[in-house]
């Protein structure tokens, strides 16, 4: 860890790798959640597998939690270092003249996603951990769909989720292509990569928002 924190470039590469890992996870999360729109049975089947598979629960889940914490802590550390590097602030600074709002405010979009994650963990992860590892309740392979739908009966929660997905889209729209640049990819494929990034950044959060709205309207 000390080596990773020792240089500006390695810090950025670590941010990029953890970001790409989280984007991969997000894709998998979406792929499972979208099945809830089409089939209760398939969603329950996938969720039961993810919730009971030892590899997912005891290897991938801890790696994911580490990845989330690392990405956020590193983001805040980098921001503090960057503010220190400026020293005295400018009286007039025209940031929008040369860089997008999104690229300059990853802390705001990321901070909003962090606040959302607290709510999301409270909504789903904490009850799940309680169900399985604290109260040791008997496993019911058909409980997942009902739990999901129940959460999205509440309009306030749906609004909070949709707003958070908007900020997630902003964060991803810079984060996707930025992570490749940090790792040294900038060549003839970069425009294609940027286009894929835009599709991902809009498509995945919009898909998650659709799932939340669908279950709210459908309950």
């Amino acid at each position, binding site marked *: 860890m000390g080596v990773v924190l*020792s*240089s*500006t*470039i*390695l*810090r*950025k*590469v670590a941010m990029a790798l953890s970001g790409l890992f989280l984007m991969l996870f997000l894709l998998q999360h979406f792929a499972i959640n979208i099945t809830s729109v089409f089939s209760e049975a398939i969603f329950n089947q996938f969720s039961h597998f993810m919730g009971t598979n030892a590899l997912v629960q005891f290897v991938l889940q801890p790696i994911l939690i580490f990845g989330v914490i690392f990405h956020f802590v590193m983001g805040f550390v*980098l921001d503090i*270092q*960057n503010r*220190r*590097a*400026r*020293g*005295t*602030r*400018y*009286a*007039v*600074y*025209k*940031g929008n*003249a*040369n*860089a*997008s709002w999104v*690229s*300059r405010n*990853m802390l705001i979009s990321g901070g909003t996603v962090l606040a959302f994650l607290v709510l999301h963990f409270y909504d789903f992860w904490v009850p799940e951990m309680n169900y399985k590892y604290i109260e040791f309740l008997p496993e019911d392979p058909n409980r997942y769909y009902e739990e999901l739908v129940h959460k999205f009966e509440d309009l306030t929660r749906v609004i909070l989720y949709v707003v958070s997905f908007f900020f997630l889209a902003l964060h991803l729209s*810079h984060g996707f*292509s*930025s992570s490749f*640049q*940090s*790792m*040294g*990819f*900038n*060549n003839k494929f970069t425009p294609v990569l940027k286009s894929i990034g835009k599709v991902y950044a809009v498509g995945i959060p919009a898909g998650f928002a659709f799932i939340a709205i669908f279950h709210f309207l459908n309950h």
Partner: protein
Amino acid sequence: MKLTLKIWRQENATAKGSMQTYSLDGVSPDMSFLEMMDVLNEQLMEQGIDPVAFDHDCREGICGSCSMFINGEAHGPDRLVTTCQLHMRKFKDGDTIHIEPFRAKPFPVIKDLVVDRTAFDRIQHAGGFVSVNTSGNTQDANAIPIEKADADKAFDAATCIGCGACVATCKNASAMLFVSAKVSQYALLPQGQVEATDRVLNMVSQMDEEGFGNCTNTGACEVECPKGISLENIARMNREYLSANVKG
């Protein structure tokens, strides 16, 4: 043109500075920005006020000396120019212009708009060179075949004049564009290969030691760079750095 100028005045490196307001009349749109500053300084001297200290040398966009942050942008609102190449026609009669020094912890203010950019020199000393035997048997560089595309990219990187606009404009005060240009100009050429590993490791290490910020890929440096140095160089430096770390 009649202008209101709000300029950072600071007596010396340890004094506390502040923005001071001056009125300037009779500015021609054909003047360069530095000529306008010369006129202001003549006016200030006639009034018995200490003239505004600012860096300048060649006044033709080559030396990288001029370093003003004008209306929130390094080298002002024009693109691909240094402050000395910026003309007053870019402003309107009655405008208020804010003029500040390049701000970064590793670029401390010496006086008014003059900042100490020797941090860049120290980064160059750490590895921005090739060691050539000059005993009389030096091989002619033109005798070594180099692919045109690589030669062009190396030359593009070498056009960096080290003015520090990238640092000044980056919201993180990162020096990655400058350092990457200096790494790239050799990384692309056969002459640079012998010391490639040490070069990138030492230059990045010196950059970090100076206290520059982390690059967050906003791309502001590329837009404000008077020589149009591309972000491609930063990606190249990242590759060089990662590969140098693996090689040890």
